[in-house]
């Protein structure tokens, strides 16, 4: 099989067995990019020289007989909101078109220490605001399964690059579903870790209390391997969780006998595409057959999550994005005075969705509205968190659809509110801060369907355990998007 179609753990075995080299793998990936990138358009920046340098270093280590870590020499893609020293980090915004950070995000440092190979920076919705990748200021990334549909967002480039075999693994960020929904749309595995599990240092902030970095991979084993590389406390992130980080691969290869899986009724309601429901029900029966106990449960405040999210996330965004003013870095608009300069800079530098959210958030925090909007949203957030706490007294994991539909047509959703509804199944998880994983569980009209598994705080292990057991009974992860001769 072509090298680019293999997973990280398969490639690692081949590297260790000296059946291939990191340079060969990296070349295979760049050849693949050459072939399909014109159609998919995942990448905003390719770092070819760096990638081959990194690959050569791993090959040299192997030649000396040194042991290598699981991701060493394995090429991956980074979402363009992760800061990379000396490499443009644009957040798919005109505002940061020429921004080259002088520092690495902690996750980038950690992956570099593992000797992973960086192929480049991938497309996204501008400043991670969107659910289709259509809000990029630069290019339209297409879904490898059907080039007329979106790859999801905001980590659309991360998901598309992995699904199109232009990267073996990738990192995305998830504020309201931005890892899981694209994973669902592209038939990949995406994990949003517990808030605080992975350091946010160097992740360009959208909404600080909701943002988390996580992996998008072809299978569950690779998900665990990337998590092993990026998770852990970071003294530079006060919100990162102190204490030991488990070896996530220990969750693999187990069964689900006796495990209690909850189905929150609120997630299987009117808005769900019946065809997706059918696919999910089949997956649920499969898990039952494997020995899991499945029960219905309730997360009663779910209906308020979307409203609360769009107040909290936009409020934080309005403040986080205030720094893009043309003074110290980034785009600067011409102006006769400082206020003119601010206005021109921000008018020219930001796209429509970013402006919409900055205005929403500014309004929500304004004097006289704070109590009615931001404060009330924070109270709803507490109630949602309590919903999850209560549910987890009864069950070990929750199972829901990742998105109410499969990937939709490019340009198919124009109304912002309809677009926001894309995240209805993923947003409550960010508000609660708990971990959730999306994995493929079938197809509707030839497009992948994602199943979302939600876990207790810091219990990514159980998510990986269920996901891996389910994966072993199916072959969705072994199916490839019909693209570039596959």
């Amino acid at each position: 099989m072509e090298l680019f179609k293999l997973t990280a753990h398969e490639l690692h075995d081949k590297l260790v067995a000296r059946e291939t080299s990191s340079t060969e793998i990296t070349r295979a990936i760049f050849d693949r990019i050459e072939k399909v990138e014109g159609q998919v358009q995942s990448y905003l920046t390719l770092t070819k020289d760096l990638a081959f340098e990194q690959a050569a270093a791993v090959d040299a280590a192997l030649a000396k007989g040194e042991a290598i870590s699981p991701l060493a020499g394995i090429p991956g893609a980074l979402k363009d909101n992760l800061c990379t020293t000396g490499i443009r980090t644009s957040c798919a915004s005109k505002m940061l078109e020429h921004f080259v950070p002088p520092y690495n995000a902690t996750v980038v440092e950690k992956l570099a220490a593992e000797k992973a190979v960086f192929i480049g920076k991938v497309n996204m919705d501008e400043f991670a605001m969107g659910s289709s990748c259509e809000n990029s200021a630069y290019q339209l990334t297409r879904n490898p399964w059907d080039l007329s549909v979106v790859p999801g967002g905001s980590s659309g480039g991360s998901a598309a690059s992995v699904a199109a075999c232009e990267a073996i693994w990738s990192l995305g960020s998830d504020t309201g579903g931005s890892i899981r929904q694209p994973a669902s749309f592209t038939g990949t595995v995406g994990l949003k870790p517990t808030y605080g599990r992975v350091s946010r240092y160097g992740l360009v902030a959208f909404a600080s209390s909701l943002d988390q970095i996580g992996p998008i991979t072809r299978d569950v084993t690779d998900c665990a391997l990337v998590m092993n590389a990026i998770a852990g406390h970071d003294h530079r992130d006060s919100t990162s969780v102190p204490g030991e980080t488990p070896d996530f691969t220990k969750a693999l290869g187990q069964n689900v006998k006796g495990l209690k899986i909850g189905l929150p009724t609120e997630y299987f309601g009117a808005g769900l595409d019946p065809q997706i429901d059918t696919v999910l029900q089949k997956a649920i029966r499969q898990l039952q057959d494997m020995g899991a106990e499945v029960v219905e449960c309730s997360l009663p405040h779910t209906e308020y999550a979307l409203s609360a999210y769009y107040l909290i996330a936009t409020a934080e965004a309005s403040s986080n994005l205030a720094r893009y003013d043309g003074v110290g870095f980034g785009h600067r608009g011409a102006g006769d005075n400082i206020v003119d300069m601010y206005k021109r800079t921000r008018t020219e530098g930001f796209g429509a969705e970013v402006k919409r959210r900055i205005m929403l958030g500014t309004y929500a925090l304004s004097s006289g509205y704070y109590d009615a909007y931001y404060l009330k949203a924070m109270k709803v957030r507490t109630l949602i968190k309590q919903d999850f706490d209560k549910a987890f007294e009864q069950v070990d994991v929750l199972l829901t659809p990742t998105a109410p539909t499969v990937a939709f047509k490019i340009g198919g959703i124009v109304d912002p509110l309809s677009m926001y509804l894309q995240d209805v199944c993923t947003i409550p998880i960010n508000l609660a801060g708990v971990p959730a994983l999306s994995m493929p569980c079938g197809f509707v009209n030839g497009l992948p369907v994602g199943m979302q598994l939600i876990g207790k705080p810091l219990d990514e292990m159980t998510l990986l355990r269920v996901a891996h057991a389910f994966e072993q009974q199916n072959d969705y992860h072994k199916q490839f998007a019909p693209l570039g001769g596959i």
Partner: protein
Amino acid sequence: MKYETVIGLEVHSELKTKSKIFCGCTTAFGGDPNTHVCPVCLGLPGVLPVINKRVVEFAIKAGLAMNCEILPFSKFDRKNYYYPDLPKNFQTSQYDLPICVNGHIDIEINGETKRIGITRIHMEEDAGKLVHSGDTITSSSSALVDYNRTGVPLIEIVSEPDMRSPEEAKLYLEKVKAILEYIDVSDCKMQEGSLRCDANISLRPVGQAEFGTKSELKNLNSFRSVQRGLEYEELRQAEILDEGGRVIQETRTWDEQQNVTKSLRSKEEAHDYRYFPEPDLVPIIVAPEWIEEIRATLPELPDARKHRLMDVYGLSAYDADMITMTRAMADYFDAVMEHTADAKTATNWLMGDVSAYLNNAGITITEFAVKPADLAQLVALINKGVLSSKLAKAVFEEMVASGKTPEAIVKEKGLEQISDQGALEAIVDETLAENPKSIEDFRAGKDRALGFLVGQIMKKTKGKANPAMINDMLKEKMK
């Protein structure tokens, strides 16, 4: 006066921690522009703040010294506003849960103690500095930004509206400064901006309970401008009220050149800071044990020290106030007192010649070359009658110039006062023999003659004769 003045102060003080509040950059003053910076204090995309524990410690220390309650749970908030010296366009500060609340300090006014309430003390980050290309902001076509100061830790101390005159405001500010210096958390240099003050002032008819409309006064860059700016504002508001007008709620700036306050912005133009909890920092949980550890490090504070000097050494309230105004002076005084029992003479010297010298030299007592033990020795030499006050001044000058001990100087220059009975008697007899006319004059009741004779003796002894002794001898011998 038919109006009562009501004043509250907001004092900003830079904390003298080694590193900034949310990153590891140095807080050192000066330095080439933009050399004390990193991605965090520059607010580059993706960076996160991490609280410097020393900042919390210093804020708690200030709170304890000002009799505050330390909140066991406090948090940071973002204060959002656009200004080019603020790289993130929000200041990380504390809004509704500051670290310290409900404190007070005492001031002395007209011989009485007055208590001024402290509403709160909170922590925040300082902004950078703008350097304008022209002479004034309005004549500048561009500005440069120096971010060295960005992220230097500040505490803001907010008083209750308890002051009733500009003088009280000045005394309060002096006390705040003294306390911060005593506990060693701030340099409190107004000229370097490490101590800054905004004032709220309003007038109300005497006897009225409700406050009048206030104005907020900014740009008060010295103790003098605090008092003068408030005095101006007091008069301005009184004039408006006298004419039946209404004071407008606004922010005004003190113009030091023109000695007037000028309107900056009205209430309508006031910022909406859109405060909300800082999501990048976790709440600050202060354990009671930590508070007690910090309390144990508190030194003797200005008030306690003042009263000790009054009780132990019998100093007057005024003298004790002057000596304890700065911790360095009080420490020097205590060090002198380890070597002498004469507090009165020591105090007179510190407040007189020593202070005059320090003022002239433009230095503080910490840079003073004379050791406390040496000053005590000078006091002892005066008390023993070895030095007259005139000679003592000369010796003091020599001590400052050479750093030698007073005993060494006396010996070296032969300055020792002649107090030996026999030696003096010989000189007195000799002088009387040379001036029979003066004896007659004296006996005739002309007191001037005595003065003349003393002068003659001083001339012979180069000023070293003990004046009290020769006075007595002359009178005795001319009886």
